[in-house]
């Protein structure tokens, strides 16, 4: 059974729609990829004109999220909440959605015009909504 098959068609459609609304209404969002903990793309949003990286980003996100979790576990900091990667041209926020069953991760890629604090807050809200949809 492929990871997508863990979700009903209705749930997957609701998640895709939510990612699209998030991507279209938040400033600077280029990609949003929801991935299974083991690196399969579940759903994604891609801004018009952006090149497709969803599959690769899904695998990278699961690795980085797991490494973040290992870092906090080994240092006694409990669960990792998010990983933030800043670059000259923007930022990537990755976060685990532990409450979802199966566990999921979300990566949001934004350009320079995005404000990091807002990006993090918005990504966490997406995570809460996705977990709620997945549990329904």
């Amino acid at each position: 059974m492929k990871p997508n098959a863990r979700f009903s068609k209705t749930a997957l459609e609701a998640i895709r729609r939510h990612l699209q609304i998030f991507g279209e209404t938040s400033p600077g969002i280029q990609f949003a990829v929801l991935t299974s903990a083991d690196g399969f793309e579940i759903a994604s949003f891609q801004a018009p004109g952006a090149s497709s990286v969803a599959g690769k980003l899904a695998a990278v996100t699961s690795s980085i999220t797991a490494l973040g979790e290992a870092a906090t576990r080994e240092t006694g900091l409990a669960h990792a909440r998010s990983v933030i990667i800043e670059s000259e041209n923007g930022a990537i926020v990755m976060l685990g959605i532990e409450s979802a069953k199966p566990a999921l991760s979300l990566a949001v890629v934004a350009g320079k015009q995005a404000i990091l604090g807002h990006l993090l807050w918005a990504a966490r809200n997406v995570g809460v909504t996705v977990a709620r949809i997945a549990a329904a």
Partner: protein
Amino acid sequence: MREGEEIKIVFTGPMGSGKTTAIAAISDAIPVSTEVENLDRDSVDKHNTTVGLDFGQVALEDGQVLRLYGTPGQVRFDFMWRIIGEGALGVVLLLDATQVTTLADLDVFLDAYGELVRRQQVVVAVGRTTAPGAIAVADVARRIALRKKVLPVFSVDVRRREDVLLLIDALLNLIEASADQEEPNET
């Protein structure tokens, strides 16, 4: 190799070949692990899978320290193969003899670590060789020979500490021999 020297060794191979188990079998401390639930049970029927890396460490009697890194097994994580391979002096390539893809898997990972293969700093370890339908170790050796290379091929049970230590011992000998060849005048 000198006393106090740290040697980086990579455990690689396809999903389910025993990389995490092999590192845990010999590491002095509980390894760092990045295992998550495996949702792709059609490919390999295994509950967990490594998506980042494994890390363990072994202090040898002669003062050398081995740093053991395990890679994810799936090709979609090949970016981690490159990252983890940086600075490695040797590779333990693990295979599962019961998979129909065993020889194709061998090719994938020999290609991925081509430079260490060229320097003959790779050992190949084949697990589950006594299971019904398992591929013969000799078939693996013949496949390697197509590359005009001779690499040691072992039949192993990576749950057994002595089996994994045998692999490490063989690999250290290869690394030493390679260093002697490249710097023949060094004392």
